[in-house]
């Protein structure tokens, strides 16, 4: 393993009976970067993260995290990683301060360090005023800040965040990402899973997971440039008919309606995407205006997973 990398996995596989939750995943995650897992629910994001921190035993394949073999050396690793679960997992019947104090003790911090670190993270994550409030009464955003504060209390080298922003509003998400970039500047490596495109786009590196397989891997920019499809936007007065006509035609990967427009993904194999779409619509006697446009990360996602994204849940 290259010590410059925080995580490397070779053919990592996890089966639950018949279901292959993680299917031969080869990961290389460099240090001091934000690495994103993008995928729909059930694509194996959480399972992969759990395999990486030793909560699950791989069926086959190997993983090393921060140069430790997992799950064999997972116990030593636990002092060096921070983990934030999908669900709020601190104690709702303890106050913000009590929760942080508890976590600091669990990481065996000496009393003096415990006091300074607890004060530090409460300031960083704007929790000072909430110190005496019960965690159960916090808002979604506050809970998330508390979770991140608890996960970073012991200055972990690696942070594993499992869909940390699934329950918060966009503004809170943006604040949260500012915190993440700050942590990366301080030298932390972050692995974050998400199903939001805007979040995925902010990662340094990205892996797209689908049915347990890694279907794409690279920087978001590169993924968008190297996309295996062309994007054509169709403007028409009869958007439903346009969609109906184009769907299930050869080379057409997907048709998504965005207001009055249809965003059409055409396989690169076709070559002349714009005229191909125009031609299909003309032969169906539909008046429409077609023009090529730049692919987005969502287009990449749809192309590699080859299926219609569910509304608001990609």
């Amino acid at each position, binding site marked *: 393993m290259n010590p410059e990398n925080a995580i490397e996995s070779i053919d990592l596989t996890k089966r639950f009976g018949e279901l292959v939750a993680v299917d031969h995943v080869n990961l290389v995650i460099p240090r001091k970067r934000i690495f994103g897992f993008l995928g729909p629910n059930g694509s194996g994001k959480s399972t992969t993260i759990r395999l990486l921190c030793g*909560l699950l*035993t791989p069926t086959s394949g190997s993983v090393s995290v921060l140069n430790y073999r997992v799950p064999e050396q997972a116990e030593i690793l636990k002092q060096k990683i921070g983990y934030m679960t999908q669900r*709020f*997992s601190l104690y709702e019947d303890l106050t913000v301060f009590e929760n942080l104090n508890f976590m600091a003790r*669990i990481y065996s911090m000496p009393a003096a360090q415990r006091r300074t670190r607890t004060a530090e993270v409460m300031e960083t994550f704007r929790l000072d005023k909430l110190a005496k409030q019960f965690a159960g009464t916090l808002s979604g955003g506050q809970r998330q800040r508390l979770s991140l504060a608890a996960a970073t209390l012991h200055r972990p080298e690696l942070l594993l965040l499992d869909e940390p922003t699934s329950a918060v509003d966009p503004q809170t998400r943006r604040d949260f990402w500012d915190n993440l970039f700050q942590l990366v500047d301080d030298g932390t490596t972050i692995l974050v899973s998400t199903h939001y495109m805007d979040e995925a786009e902010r990662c340094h590196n990205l892996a797209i997971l689908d049915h347990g397989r890694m279907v794409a891997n690279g920087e978001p920019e590169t993924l968008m440039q190297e996309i295996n499809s062309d994007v054509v936007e169709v403007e028409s007065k009869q958007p439903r008919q346009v969609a109906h006509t184009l769907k299930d035609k050869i080379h057409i990967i997907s048709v998504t309606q965005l207001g009055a427009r249809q965003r059409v993904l055409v396989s690169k194999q076709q070559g002349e995407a714009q005229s191909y779409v125009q031609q299909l619509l003309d032969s169906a006697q539909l008046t429409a205006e077609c023009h090529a446009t730049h692919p987005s990360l969502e287009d990449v996602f749809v192309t590699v997973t080859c299926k219609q994204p569910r509304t608001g849940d990609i």
Partner: protein
Amino acid sequence: MKLSLTRLFAILQKEVQQLRRDRLTFGMIVGIPLMQIILFGFAINTDVRNLSAAVADQSNTQLSRQLVADMLATQVIDRVQHVNTGAQLKTLLDQGDIKIGILIPADFERRLQQSSRPAAQLMIDGSDPIILSTAQSLTKMSFNQRNAAKSIKPPELFEVRNYYNPERRSAVFVVPGLIGAILTMTMVLFTAVAIVRERERGNLELLINTPVSTTELMIGKIIPYIIIGLIQVAIIMLLGMFLFHVPVNGRVLDVYLASGIFIAANLSLGLVISTVAKNQFQAMQLTFFFFLPSLLLSGFMFPFEGMPRAAQIIAEILPMTHFMRLIRGIMLRGAELSQLSMEVYALVIFTIITMSFAILRFKKRLD
């Protein structure tokens, strides 16, 4: 098995903070022993009184009426209803209206003087063995012959004496046993639920991703409940002494030592349940699966000696059986703990086995 005192103390402090805020659990700690001892101390009573009875007095003499009056004086029977024939008594028994029928034949006075034949007949509802044995005690009853003129004085008749002292005698037997019953129920349930709840709420997924070890987690969870258990023992003992005048003939320290080991045994069993149960409902079901045999086989309700061999073997596995012998020995017979060392060993072995099993079964993994 590495053990960090800092982490152990962290778990301990957290448990105490949570317990302090969990009003319902906190209420149960005090409320369960309080309510149960008051309820069962009065209600569980093997000395049966006030059985409903009927009499068919075919003799209808002063002597026969005297007999019925004397039977009423024993308090075993109550509110006698009058019928004419034995058949009518049988009907009342069948209907469940009465537990005892008294048939006094027309030749009662003559029979009284012939010691070869019983003078009267008792018809007893024997479906409940405790009632049967109580009713049979009526046959040993003396019949105080006040009519000197008749001068009937068979040698087997003694003066009527109310030798039932129901509240006191039963409570003396029941209260020490209640310590065992209450501790079994609350202790097993508290620990079983304590860990399952953390799993349900997702806390465990976070905890197992920290350096905390299984042993630290288990011991940290158990210690607060040992203290709670000892508080419960104190509540039961104090109520038993002041409300039911139950004696503590042995040393109080021995009572606490015996209870302490018994609590540890129950708590480690609770931990085993918590590693098996997936949710709080299952934890509850498993606790009761264990609680009922403890209640019925341990000697708390029925004498151990009366059970078939197989049941006795099962009972020997249950911690409550050993605790019953310990607590009754110490509190009632005034025995010392050292005299009952076999029971202590049994509890210690049970604790070690279940605790090891719980620690081995509890993996810091999700699969």
